Every structure is written in C-alpha cells, then in structure tokens.
C-alpha cells in the first residue's frame, strides 16, 4: 500500500511538474495577452526537435540552452508578423490563426525531420538512478526535471509580481492605445511575452523530449491538456496553473495506480451483471482506463461550479 502511495505521489508530481513547464508559458500568453494559443504544444514539439538536432552535433546541454532560444525567437517572429496582424480581428481570429499554425508546425516538422520517432536521449551525465525505492529506480533526469520546473515557477512568479510588466500587459490587452499613450511600447512587450512564452514551451520540449519520446504527434497528445490546466487553475493565475498541474498529475497517476473501477463498486453494492448485458462496457470500466480523460471531466465540473477556475479572478 505504502509502495503504491509513494509511487503514485512521486509519479504524479513528476507528470504534474512537466505539465506545469508547458502550462507556465501558456498561462503567460493566455492570461496576459488573452491569446488562446493553440500552437503552444507545437512550440513545445519544436523545442524537442531542435534540441534533438543540436544534441546530435553538440550534445544535450547545448541543446538545452539554444533550442528554447530558437523557439523563442520563432515565437517572437510569429507574433510580430502574424499574430499582431490578426489581433485586430479579435480573439476568434487569433485562435483560428494559432490553430492553423499548429497544423503548419506539425506539417513542417514532418517535412523537415520526417515522421519517424526520433532517437533523442537523456544526457549521459544524468543517466544514473538518483535513488532506488522498493526496487525501482528514480532517475536523476527526473530529479532534474523537477528542479527546472520549480525554478521556472519561482522565476515567473517573481517576474509577474515584482515587475510592472504584468500590469502593463494586462492593461494593454483591453486598452492598447491608452497604454501606448502612457509611453509604453506595447507591441514590443507583446512580442517579448509571446517569445518568452514560446521559449518556455520550447524548454519544456527540450526536457520532456527524451522522456516522452520525440515524434510528430507529441504536440497533439499535450495540446488540449495544457488548456485544461490553465483554465482549471484560473486564467491569469500562475499559482493556479501550478496547483492545477500538480492536481492533474496526481489525479492521473492515482487513477492509474488505483485499479479500482465499476466492478469494485458493483461488488460493494452486491450487484452483478452478465457479460452480455448491454451496458457491459460501463460495468467493467476501471479508473486506469479513464485516467487520461479525468482532467476533462474535472474541467467541465470546475467550469460549471466555479467558472473562474480554482484561483482565477476573472472569467474570460
């Protein structure tokens, strides 16, 4: 029992923090610029691919530094030459734009790197078990992931609360002209925020790539879940995103670890159904089976009962 609990917690933490790395950039963009960036996970994928290519030549650590930078610059360019133009046509337009962009990036990745799975590996230097628990290893790389995620959280938190950037952007979403009239270079700031946001996504890609495999579908797998996190956490709340990430990580890992399901419930109730019962699929449902969609259930419930999210102050 203890073993199950420990592992579930540990795994949940790692998954959660990984999700947070991705969600942090999106929170930044989504909540500050109001842009529903559907391509966020695509930038994450780009991060992994760039890092893969760089690591072939110069090793993992160079990739860790440069891949996010490249992705950030790409993001900034996208903002400068694409989003900025689209911004005038409203949020739906921005959304469709990023939607198309996600599409485009996925195709471009396949175009340039092919559709195969890429052999992107963790660095040698972190290739040892950090500790062994109940006979299973916890790799140093996972420890490294946790450390980076926490560093991102602290760094961003500091940037958002201790500097004026946060309020400038927030004001500029609704009143860009007014903010400009006060002497702030709004376009530059937007470009910067988008660049930083996408760079964070790229960083998440660099770090997650070796663990979660680098392949053209890797963006799709995470695409909507990051939105779920940002919304459950509450728009505009970094702390909310942090908590929601952990919550979802833990939710999933406990669901998988639990082995509970309808059969147990039915046993408890003393009910039994024949295998050919029309609802057999329902009676045999188990938690691990539905684990990955639980976040969406949570999302719907949270939005129904607490539309502003767990820690959010505003609704949209």
């Amino acid at each position, binding site marked *: 029992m203890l073993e199950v609990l420990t592992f579930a917690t540990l795994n949940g933490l790692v998954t959660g923090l990984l999700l947070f790395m991705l969600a942090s950039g999106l929170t930044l963009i989504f909540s500050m610029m109001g842009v529903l960036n559907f391509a966020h996970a695509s930038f994450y994928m780009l991060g992994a691919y760039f890092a893969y290519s760089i690591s072939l030549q110069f090793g993992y650590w160079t990739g860790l530094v440069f891949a996010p930078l490249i992705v950030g610059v790409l993001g900034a360019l996208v903002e400068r030459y694409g989003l900025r133009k689209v911004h005038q046509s409203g949020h739906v337009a921005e959304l469709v734009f990023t*939607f198309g962009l996600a599409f485009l990036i996925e195709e471009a990745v396949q175009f340039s790197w092919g559709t195969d799975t890429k052999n992107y590996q963790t660095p040698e230097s972190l290739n040892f078990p950090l500790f062994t628990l109940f006979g299973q290893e916890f790799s140093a790389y996972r420890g490294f992931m946790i450390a980076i995620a926490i560093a991102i959280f602290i760094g961003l938190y500091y940037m958002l609360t201790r500097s004026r950037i946060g309020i400038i952007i927030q004001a500029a979403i609704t009143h860009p002209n007014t903010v400009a009239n006060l002497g702030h270079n709004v376009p530059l700031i937007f470009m910067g925020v988008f660049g930083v946001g996408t760079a964070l996504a790229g960083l998440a890609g660099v770090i997650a790539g070796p663990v979660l495999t680098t392949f053209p579908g890797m963006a799709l797998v995470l695409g909507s879940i990051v939105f779920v996190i940002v919304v459950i956490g509450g728009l505009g709340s970094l702390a909310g995103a942090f908590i929601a990430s952990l919550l979802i990580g833990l939710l999933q890992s406990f669901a998988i670890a639990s082995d509970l399901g309808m059969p147990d419930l039915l046993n408890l109730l003393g009910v039994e159904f024949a295998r050919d019962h029309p609802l057999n699929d329902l009676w045999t449902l188990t938690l691990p089976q539905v684990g*990955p969609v639980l976040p969406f259930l949570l999302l719907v419930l949270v939005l129904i009962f607490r539309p502003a999210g767990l820690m959010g102050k505003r609704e949209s």
Partner: protein
Amino acid sequence: MALLKKSAVWIVFALTMLILPQIFDSVLGISILNQMAIAIVFALSYNMLLGQGGMLSFGHAVYFGLGGFLAVHTLILIEAQVLTFSIVLIPLVGGLFGLLAALFVGSFSTRKAGTVFAMISLGIGELAVASSLIFVSFFGGEAGISGDRTYGPPFFGVEFFQDSEIYYVAAAWVLIATLFMYLFTQTPAGRLANAVRDNPERAAFIGYNARWVRYISFCAAGFFAGVAGGLFALNYEFLTEENLNAITSGRVLLMAYIGGLGYFIGPIIGAVALTLMNSLLSNYTDLWLLYLGLLFVLTVMFLPRGFAGLIMMHEVAWRRRTLKTLARPYLLTAIPASLFLLSCIGFIELAHLEGGSLSYLGMMLDPERPLTWVVLVAVVLASFFATRYSLPQLRRAWDEANSLRDEES
C-alpha cells in the same frame, strides 16, 4: 412579385444543386457533392453558434456524431425490421438526437459565453470521444458501427443502391435545413442571439435572459448538426469515433471561419471550398496538409472576414459598376503573385523530393543540379518583388473604384 424576388436566390440555389450532379456525374463527383452537402449543413449549424451567437465551440462534432450514430442505429433497426420507415427521414432522426444531446449539454454550458463556454465544449468533446471508445457496444469502438440504407421501404421506387440517389435526398435536406436556418436568423430568437453575442448584459435590461437566448441557439445548432450527421450516416452508412472527435470539430470551425462568419453564406462557401481542397489537393501532393495549414494562416491574416468577406468587399464597386476597372490591376498583380506561389510550391516540393526528379508544370526539375535551385530561387525572389511592386497600383485602382461613390452622393 416581391415574393418571387425574395425566393429567387433560393430557386437558383435549388437549381444549382439539381444541375451539378448532371455535370459531375462520376462516382467521385457525386461523392464530393455529397460531402459538400453534409459539410454545408454542418458548417451552417456551427455558424449559428459562433457567427450568430458568439459561442466558440470546440466540440460541435459531438452533436454531428451523436446524431449520426443514432441514425446508423436506426438504419440497423430498419434492417432488422424493428422499424419501418423511409430512410429519407433518417436525417430527421439524426437531428432529433443532436437536439436531445444539445438540450442536455446546453443546460449547463450556455450559462456563460466566452472562454468558459469554449472550454466546456472542449471538455465535453473529449469526454464524448473517450466514451465512444469505451462504450463499444453502442459506438463500435474505433471501427465504429455500420448500417445499410437499402433495407427501408423504397421511396417512390428508389432503393438507394447508389450514392447518386442519396445525393438528391441530401440536396433536399440541404435546401430545407438552409432555409430553416436562414429563417431562424429572421426570428426574434435569432436576432436576440446576435444581441446577446454583442452585449449579453444589456440584453438582460431589455427583458431577456442571455442564457435562454444562448440555449435556444445552441439547441437549434445541435439539431442541425445532427441532421448533418444523419446525412453522413445515409451517405457512408457507417460512423466512427472520428466523426465526433476534435478534428471534426476543428474542421467545421475552420470551414465556418474561412468562409466568413459574418455572412449567412460564408459557411456555405467555406464548406464547398474546404471539401474541394480536401478531396482534390491530396491527390497531387503528400504535402497538401502543409499547404492547407498555410492557407488557413494566410486567410486569417489577410482575409479576416473570410472568403465571403472578400466577395462582399466588391459590393460597392459592383453597385457603382466600376468593377471592370479593377480587372486590369487585378491581372497585373495576379500574374507575379501566382508565379510567386507556383515557384514557392515548386521549391517546397523539390526540397521534399526523395530521389528522382520532379515533374512540375510540364517541366522536369532535377534536384541534383545546382542550376535548378538557382533558377527557382531567382524566380521566387523576382516574382515576390514584382508582386510587391504591383500592389500600389492595385490599391490605387481599388480606392478609385470605391471612392467614386463619394463624389456622386
């Protein structure tokens, strides 16, 4: 007379739908037309949500899919002779179940618009997909369920062995559904949907509960999505998880958006254009998804009001009868612009090529020879600058064509 004038556009619409299958009478032609019919109803129903009601949905395929699944189940029941009615009514069955699903989901999702609504629709969409894979006995898992449309009582002697026979059923339904969706925009509920989209708060102070207004639009949209799903079931005789997943939802969003949300005919244009592209482009290149992505991105950037908006931009010039003055400037820009496009495509295709040489526009391009690349790049650059150079004259001509009105009035 006034009635005739009003219905003229509908008569033309109906006639077009009658004539098209005579022209494109191959199996493929009919298949594309059927696809368009389905897409038109679906995209229009989506526009009821987003364009008219301001509700951004990422899960509209749920109602399409559920309607379709129930329609297939109905076909199965007809085949098993549990039910007996003509299969031309299947889209109605789909519609009713789409409506039922919308009645349920809408009861909690329409409370708010904006991000909250959008995200609930996303969640519901994912949950629907997950359940469709879990409840295999109803949804058939990833292989879906299939039925057979030929077991219903013949409809005036037609047994629907061929897609071309289904086409006329589909066309009739498109006409009916489009008409009703259009009329809906002319009712109080339809207009209030616009009002609530613009300013839900103020709607409350003229006596309307924004939530109810949204709910009505939402249910109507669900109904017509279900009709489209029913049409799909009739045409393909099967449904899979794919038909209610996020990709289908995303596609309908793109159709409506690219067509132009602000216009009733926008989604129709979008549906036709996208269907065509989907079925034709994929035959010429493996990279068609890349081009599609590019097209979306460029459309959003340069045609914020969609294709319909582009057409409507010419309304003034049309009424002013200055449209023809634009022909020459358009041509002057179009030539370098299309050259630019073509050479870019050539460049991309050549880069993608693995082995051999590329036969492109009647030329053989050999990627091994540096000269090929040099020439290609030169053409790309030259045509790009030529296009840019030609833009000011187009803009001037454009202003002129449109500003004549001022002087006159």
